[in-house]
């Protein structure tokens, strides 16, 4: 198969954060240092090679960057300072942009200004929309926060949430489908039977909920923090999607619902503060390099958490009008964060990483079956050798 070379690829990756790929001299230290690097997925060196050679088509279909959790072991040991860990991170950004059929991810990763503008515009639209809705079709009275007469009734927000969720799912679905096509159809991987797809379906859930592979890194702390962050988010998501009315009822605190919210808020804020501190201090290898998109993500998280907590507190102490305003501000953070980050930026990894784990297991399984089928032939062919 002819392979087309894109000599500009390595320069292109600089926009996504990979600055030092060119320094790599292929000693293989990184691949051997990585606890996950096993056949058929030997990384990160192979991807570094493909980058240096400009093999864009092959990189598009590689799963390897998604199998890396960036513990930073490889970057620390790299004798050339080629930053293989950061290269993997940049490749994930690049792949996110490749999978995205709208082209938005590509624009956002290349220009933080474009991303900022998009965030501001979406935030503004959200704010205006909510105010218009509140005054015209909602409660109309800024000083009522809860109940059916509320300025922003929870039933309306609930509907809006479900529409937004559906929109995001559709985007992620199409992008993941593209990922599947690049990985499974364009590459020369063994043909995978439907039975394997079904047999390995459990992998999706296992990795999504436990991030089992992350726990296999030599450093355990990032895995625990990530798990706390993820479960906090998941809790919030469930509360908002299914129990929004109970969450917003009040001002008395309903401990059966709110205790989950409090725990999730604590988990969120703690992990976000730790991540920001890590990125500022740069002591851990995985925090040494921060792309603009990483900061955008963290800042949005801070805004969302702080406004979320504040609107809750204001509501409970009886300041309904400020609580409503804070709520609008909160939504002005939440909507751009979800609408832009989930399909087009860092958050997309919730789908791609999970699918990558699934696809990689499929490939391993298919190769195993292939080897089994070939074994009798090989054994017959082989000349007996002395051990």
């Amino acid at each position: 198969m002819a392979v087309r070379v894109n000599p500009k690829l390595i320069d292109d990756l600089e926009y996504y954060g990979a600055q030092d790929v060119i320094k790599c001299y292929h000693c293989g230290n990184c691949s051997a240092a990585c606890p996950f690097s096993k056949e058929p997925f030997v990384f990160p060196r192979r991807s570094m090679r493909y980058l240096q050679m400009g093999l864009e088509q092959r990189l598009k279909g590689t799963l390897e960057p998604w199998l890396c959790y960036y513990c930073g072991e490889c970057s620390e040991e790299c004798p050339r300072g080629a930053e293989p860990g950061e290269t993997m991170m940049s490749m994930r950004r690049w792949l996110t942009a490749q999978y995205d059929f709208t082209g938005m991810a590509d624009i956002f990763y290349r220009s933080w200004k474009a991303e900022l503008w998009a965030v501001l515009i979406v935030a503004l639209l959200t704010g205006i929309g909510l105010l218009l809705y509140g005054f015209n079709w909602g409660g109309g009275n800024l000083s009522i926060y809860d109940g059916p007469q509320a300025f922003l009734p929870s039933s309306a927000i609930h509907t809006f949430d479900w529409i937004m969720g559906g929109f995001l799912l559709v985007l992620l679905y199409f992008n993941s489908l593209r990922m599947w096509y690049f990985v499974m159809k364009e590459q020369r991987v063994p043909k995978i039977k439907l039975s394997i797809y079904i047999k390995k379906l459990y992998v999706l859930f296992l990795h999504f909920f436990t991030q089992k592979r992350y726990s296999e890194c030599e450093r355990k702390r990032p895995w625990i923090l990530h798990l706390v962050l993820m479960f906090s988010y998941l809790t919030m998501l469930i509360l908002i999607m299914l129990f929004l009315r109970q969450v917003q009822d009040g001002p008395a605190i309903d401990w059966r619902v709110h205790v989950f919210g409090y725990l999730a808020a604590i988990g969120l804020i703690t992990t976000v503060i730790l991540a920001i501190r890590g990125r500022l201090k740069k002591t851990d290898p995985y925090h040494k390099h921060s792309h603009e998109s990483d900061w955008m993500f963290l800042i949005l998280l801070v805004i969302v958490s702080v406004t979320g907590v504040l609107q809750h507190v204001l509501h409970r102490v009886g300041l309904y009008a400020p609580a409503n305003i804070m709520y609008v501000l909160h939504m002005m953070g939440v909507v751009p964060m979800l609408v832009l980050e989930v399909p087009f930026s860092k958050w997309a990894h919730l789908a791609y990483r999970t699918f990558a784990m699934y696809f990689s297991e499929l490939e391993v399984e298919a190769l195993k079956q292939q080897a089994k089928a070939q074994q009798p032939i090989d054994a017959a062919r082989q000349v007996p050798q002395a051990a």
Partner: protein
Amino acid sequence: MSIQQKIGVYIYENGKEGKGIIDCRAIAEYAKGLPQVERVTLFSEPKKLNPLVLADEFKKAGFNRIVIAGESPGYFKPAFNRAMAEAGGDPDEVRIASFREHGVGLEGPTDRAKAVVACAVFGIPFGLAAIPGKVPVNPATLVIGGGVAGIQAALEIADAGYKVYLVERLGTIGGHMAMFDKTFPTLDCAACILTPKMVAVGQHPNIELIVLADVQDVTGRPGAYQVKVLKRTGRVDAKACVACNACAEICPVSVPSEFDVGIANRKAIYIPFPQAVPNTYIIDGASCTYVQSDGKKCGACLKKCAKDAIHFDAKDELIEFEVGNIIVATGYDTFDAHRLDRYGYGVLPNVLTSLEFERLTNASGPTGGKIVVKTKKLNKRTKTEEWVFDADGPKPKAVAIIHCVGSRDQNFNSYCSRVCCMYSLKFGHLVREKLPDAACYEYYIDMRAFGKGYEEFFERIKDEGVHVVRGRSARILPKGDRMIVKGEDIIHETVIELPVDMVLLAVGLQPTADAERLASMLGIERVQEGWFSEMEYNVEPTSTERGGIFVAGVCQGPKDIPDTVAQAAAVAAKALKSIVSGSIQGSRHRLTLLDIEQRAMSLAV
């Protein structure tokens, strides 16, 4: 410079200059004042050097000579050459003013840089313009370091009939080469080549051998250096001692042997190795019970010595003499493998450094040259179990050799140590020769078999059944009695985990611990990595900026034995030239900017 010249000067600032080492702005100001210099440009972004843009600049200004100045400006020459050709000029008129090559970094670095720029502007090689005046020379020579370089240089000069003082830090000359088993690629026995030379040094009437000694101070000028050498006492009279070994037999103290790099023990009174020169026993004061107890305990050797050669009251002495030339041949230290904990050196018993393996496989080593793995033995005195080499111990079934340990790694030494590939191949040969049933794996990044017969040697050891694996191993993990070597085979793109019994770490070379002290004492420069600087990289690889002080061997930069010997002989020729002619070039760094500038100008006219 008969034709009207229009000269453009480009000075590359790489940031290092800003830190007070070289002041590029001052150089630019100076260059502007030089005759026929039209314009001086400072640049710091090599990425922005577009030959076509440069060509436009040249054309507009009408430059017919370009000077590129900077730390190593040769890097930019291709771009400027092309620009000059595009502009219709003569690419040969792109002149280089390399600060690094011409010893900028010494006293008055900015002045030296100015002089280098001036020479380039006048179109005169710096070496032609900056020639120091001549001074009379003392015919005696001091050689610091008694390794193969020092031995070779001392013998060449002494054979020509001139006095040589050879100062060695340890109790015997021979250096690292005396520890080796074989030399590559000829597989000659290292000791068989070296020991006759060592004996020749010991017996030479023109060589005054001072062992156990450190050069304390060097003063004076080129051609007449006053040297102070502190000779530490070995507490044994060299004239009386017949090396009968009776003292060592009775000595109760046992400590790790320096010569065997710790894989075997010696006594407190010892001879480094049987062929040591001078062949005299030494008492190591730090481990000797008698010395440590101020004569209250032990003293067994004193009673045993039939020749009354042992004098515990002997004192260190300060020796002073004058020499005309000084040859620095202080060699190297090996990289400390403890710094790389992922290879488990010091934790896993059978991870050895290259020097340890040299001693192990050497016929005069602790196992008589048998390659065995360490076995656990009870030390009767300390009642602890220790890993030791036992000649009857089990043989390794698989040996891994890991190249580039501490070399070509920006976390440690970023340079290539130059000898490791070849000695590792030699190890591969020795393993396969002595243990034909053992598998041997070489993990390498790039195979640097660059010398005469080296590539052929590489091919030969591959034929001998040594497996070469392209890719550096990243981990050595214990697994039962054996070890797992984990590395990527980058050609087959697989991570392989091989079980082995012994791992050899091809540690790199690095400057000796006291190189800094020596450099400041002698007034010579060191490069960033710590090796001594030569005067000119290409044409004066043995001289230093200081007149009458020369460098030979690895202390100037990593090199193998043939190159070391060649450089030592070259140094001897340099010294002899000055002795025979009766005069020597003074120090170049004593020249003022005005001297060099005027000379360059007169040459140009």
